[in-house]
């Protein structure tokens, strides 16, 4: 009897100990969910701006008070983690970064190297590696990027995230670089990271007002274009919009895109091609102990717009003419991209990686001074654009026959 009493008391006590919840309890209403972060330079420390969302204003079922949907705080501390925890000095809740979506780094910081600031993001257990990393272009302060009240998605970090994600699926000028990709590109032999640029277009002061989102034609928007190139993880230059697309084609990171080309007979008029199947293959040949990179592009597309007055698409030979014309013009974009990367000695194209993967022995000789060797690498292009369709109509209605 006493045994039974004793064991049941013991059981109750153990349950009390084990079932009372965990040490690390942080309820949702105690957390401020950080969706965007910006890193700027301030004297000799980094300045960290955190954007937390205001759930009451974002939830669709609730009627908010009409307050701002996001709340930005800026902290300066020697390390990023300390800045992050100092967030609570200005906010009533603890910063929680598992739902981080974008990290914007100012160009000034990126020119001094990105490896030191990224360490925290790999190390901390709360961080998931699926957020995007961007560079605030043209000495724009990164914190300003996150201060704009953007239309449609009022929280700029969400705006940037969606813009990048859907841009990569429909236009191809943007490049998705998550933390994992960035780490891979930054540390793997023979490739350098290329990060998306973002800048504020329009008047900064007006953009920070709520009225910015209340107009049909906002005074200020964010512009996400151009790619930052790195050399040994220091920012060295920028690729233009077309070159960014070229880079995405070369590395095979493209899904559906649209490009404009000059008409075969008249270079003042244009037609547009919508590509829907892109495949890039590479091969590396060794000639005289020098690597030559053969790139093959197989692109299936259809004509999505024609402004050419003399082009008769009902004839088969004109299709081949258009294909040939677009191949040539596409080639110049690719050559331009490679030229630009070579000019900055920044192997964002991953040529070194291609050599490493195909000819590891040759790579052993090249890798010690790859930055100098990279501009000397010869590249051949083989572009095959296949046009299958002309949309709902055959010839443009400007034709009067």
């Amino acid at each position: 009897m006493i045994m039974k009493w004793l064991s049941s008391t013991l059981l109750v006590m153990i349950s009390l100990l084990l079932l009372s919840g965990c040490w690390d309890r942080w309820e949702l209403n105690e957390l401020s969910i950080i969706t965007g972060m910006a890193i700027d330079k301030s004297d000799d420390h980094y300045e960290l701006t955190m954007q937390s969302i205001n759930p009451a204003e974002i939830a669709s079922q609730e009627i908010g008070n009409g307050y701002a949907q996001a709340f930005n705080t800026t902290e300066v501390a020697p390390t990023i983690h300390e800045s992050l925890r100092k967030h609570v000095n200005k906010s009533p809740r603890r910063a929680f970064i598992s739902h981080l979506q974008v990290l914007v780094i100012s160009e000034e910081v990126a020119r001094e190297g990105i490896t030191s600031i990224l360490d925290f993001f790999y190390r901390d257990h709360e961080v998931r590696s699926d957020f995007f990393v961007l560079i605030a272009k043209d000495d724009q302060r990164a914190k300003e990027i996150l201060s704009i009240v953007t239309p449609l998605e009022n929280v700029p970090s969400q705006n940037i995230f969606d813009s990048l994600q859907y841009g990569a699926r429909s236009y191809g000028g943007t490049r998705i670089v998550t933390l994992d990709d960035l780490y891979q590109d930054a540390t793997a032999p023979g490739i350098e990271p290329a990060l998306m640029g973002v800048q504020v277009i329009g008047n900064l002061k007006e953009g920070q007002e709520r009225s910015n989102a209340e107009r049909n034609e906002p005074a200020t928007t964010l512009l996400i274009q151009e790619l930052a190139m790195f050399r040994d993880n220091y920012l060295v230059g920028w690729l233009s919009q077309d070159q960014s697309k070229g880079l995405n084609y070369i590395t095979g990171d493209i899904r559906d895109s649209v490009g404009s080309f000059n008409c075969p007979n008249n270079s003042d008029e244009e037609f547009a091609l919508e590509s829907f199947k892109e495949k890039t293959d590479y091969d590396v040949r060794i000639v005289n102990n020098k690597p030559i990179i053969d790139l093959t592009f197989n692109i299936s597309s259809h004509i999505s717009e024609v402004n050419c007055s003399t082009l008769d698409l009902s004839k088969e030979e004109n299709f081949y003419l258009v294909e040939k014309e677009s191949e040539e013009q596409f080639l110049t974009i690719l050559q331009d991209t490679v030229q630009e990367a070579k000019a900055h000695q920044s192997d964002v194209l991953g040529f070194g990686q291609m050599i490493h993967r195909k000819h590891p022995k040759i790579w052993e000789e090249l890798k010690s001074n790859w930055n100098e060797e990279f501009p000397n690498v010869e590249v051949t292009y083989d572009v095959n654009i296949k046009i299958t369709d002309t949309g709902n109509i055959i010839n443009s209605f400007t034709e009067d026959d």
Partner: protein
Amino acid sequence: MKTIAQLSPRSYGFLVFYATCSTALLGLATSLATYVHQDAWVVPIVGSLFGAGVVFLYTMIARWYPFETIYEINEQLFGKTIGIVLSLLFLSLPVFHFPAITSYSVTFIQNYTLPTTPFIVITAIGIGLVAFGIFSGIEPIARTAELCFVFFIVPLLFLVFTTAPLIDFGFVQPYFTFSWFNMSEAFSIFLGNVVSNVVIQLTVFPKYLAKKKAGERALWTGYSLGCLILTIITFLSIAVLSPEVVSIDHYPAFTLAQEINAAGFLQRVEATITVIWFICIYFNLTLYFHCIVIGMKHFFKLKSAQVLIPVIALLLVYLADYYFNNIAEERSFYQYVSVPHSIFVGTMLPITIIIVGIIKRKKQQKPLYPPYPDEATVYKLQHTPDSHSSEKI
């Protein structure tokens, strides 16, 4: 009437399966990728083929002494003194590794889910569960292993199939560029951490299995399934996460689980997936604990070791808490202590047993690879009142 615990071959197979995966399922890819980078996936394939030879030695020993555990085998083969020395050597494997594995898995739990919960609390709860398992006996443990299968295989298959589309074969190129020195280094890690740990099965198999022949098949099935899973997870880690990320990541398989994104809505499920590592590590720890308990029972010639369980558990909680001062110490333990020690106990010791055994059996003109006694003989032997192996653990 006291009878010996009897495991069904199927549940025993699951036990071997989990114990083979163990902590390697969580962190093997890192230790391999640090040495051979993108070729890390080759190691488990070659290693498990080589390991098959080692497992063959275990089955040979089992065929010679189908009613004994390794401790009794040592004594019978080498006599009292040398037998005890070898048995103590064998006992050092679970004693050294139990706290290490506990510490590793508790650090994992602390890192990802309970960062400020005191280490000793998680350890005490964990080891409490292990001790409870041992208290119930090896037979209920094996049955639990069988029942846990659903909770193990469903998340595991989910992990494999949702991350398989993310494979980038570029990450595993160029093929076979390792230096032989690094390869042998990685190979010894696999041999030490995975293959040699199978030796603890000799404290369960063949004594606690009624159907010896089927039990041997279960050992093979469990071992090969475990190695297959390790190969798949290592390959996936490398091909999805890239060798660079894997070689700095403490828990590559967990990072792999973070990549899961099924159609945009089923994501961030890694906390659910962790159940597979809990199951694996639990059964591995339980086997180690079992190994320690029956070792104690053997050395002190106890009828039942039940009373020792809470005491050993308390000591192990203490040990696990004080085992490593920091993560660097833990790493060097695995590199300089764990691997050589495991290889020594898990491979060298069986080889010694086999060599001595062959010489002895040649002299006595006994067959070198005898068949197992059939079930009826086993039953009769185990149910005679004076049989020395009729005590329950």
